[in-house]
């Protein structure tokens, strides 16, 4: 849990606006970041029904681990810019899919905060992604979409 606290400790006072699931104002002193944001999932349904929600979350859960794996390879090669690029892309997807903890870690990775240890943060991404998957399966079980 130490690494969670390290990953989540950041000041985002310079952010312009916050979406309802924007966790950027939270720090290690406000650890109650939800695993999943049901409003974001309902928003996807509003945009395109259950079919879109299912398509996007399935895609997210398939692609996110691959992106994290790519970031690890980049880190091993010393390519921090590639790690940041992955974090930027995953941040966007996580925000849209209602995965605020994943989003928050990505914000921190993207910011190139020198106090952040990247390898533990990537491990935290794995863990938070697994928690999000479990949350999603429980809160929004897959519908029978034609």
């Amino acid at each position, binding site marked *: 849990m130490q690494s969670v606290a390290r990953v989540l400790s950041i000041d985002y006072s310079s952010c312009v606006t916050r979406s309802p699931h924007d966790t950027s104002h939270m720090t290690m002193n406000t650890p109650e970041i939800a695993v999943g944001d049901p409003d974001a999932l309902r928003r996807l349904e509003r945009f395109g029904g259950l079919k879109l929600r299912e398509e996007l979350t399935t895609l997210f859960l398939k692609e996110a681990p691959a992106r994290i794996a790519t970031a690890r390879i980049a880190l091993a090669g010393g390519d921090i810019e590639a790690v940041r690029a992955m974090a*930027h892309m995953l941040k966007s997807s996580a925000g*849209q899919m209602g995965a605020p903890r994943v989003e928050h870690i990505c914000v921190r990775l993207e910011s190139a905060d020198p106090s952040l240890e990247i390898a533990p943060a990537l491990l935290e991404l794995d863990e938070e992604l697994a928690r999000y998957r479990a949350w999603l399966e429980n809160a929004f079980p897959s519908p029978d979409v034609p």
Partner: protein
Amino acid sequence: MKRIMIIEDNVDNRLLLGAILGDAYTVTEHANGPDGLAALAAERPEIVLLDISLPGMDGVEVLRHIRADPMFRHLPVIAFTAHAMSSDRAKYLAHGFDDYITKPIVDETILLGSISKLLDRVAA
């Protein structure tokens, strides 16, 4: 229907935008800048929704190419980006984007309103 070109490398964002815009507009999608630029003349979009953090040629460079073409110099281009810091909006408008929409999309009416406003401006 009016034509919108989406240039966005993130497939989930392309799916999302297609769902939001597909009923009202003819949407074409490209995963990178060079592909989008190559398709401009054939597709003749009335507006472009352009991701900033594209691999290889980024959105700012894609915009520069669009503005350099006399045929598309005045084509409305909206920056679509997850860069949401206080200085980003002004920065991208200064680059020549016509508007700036941040990801994730929370309120689709902001996007739809921006598109509508820019299309009205072109029509005026």
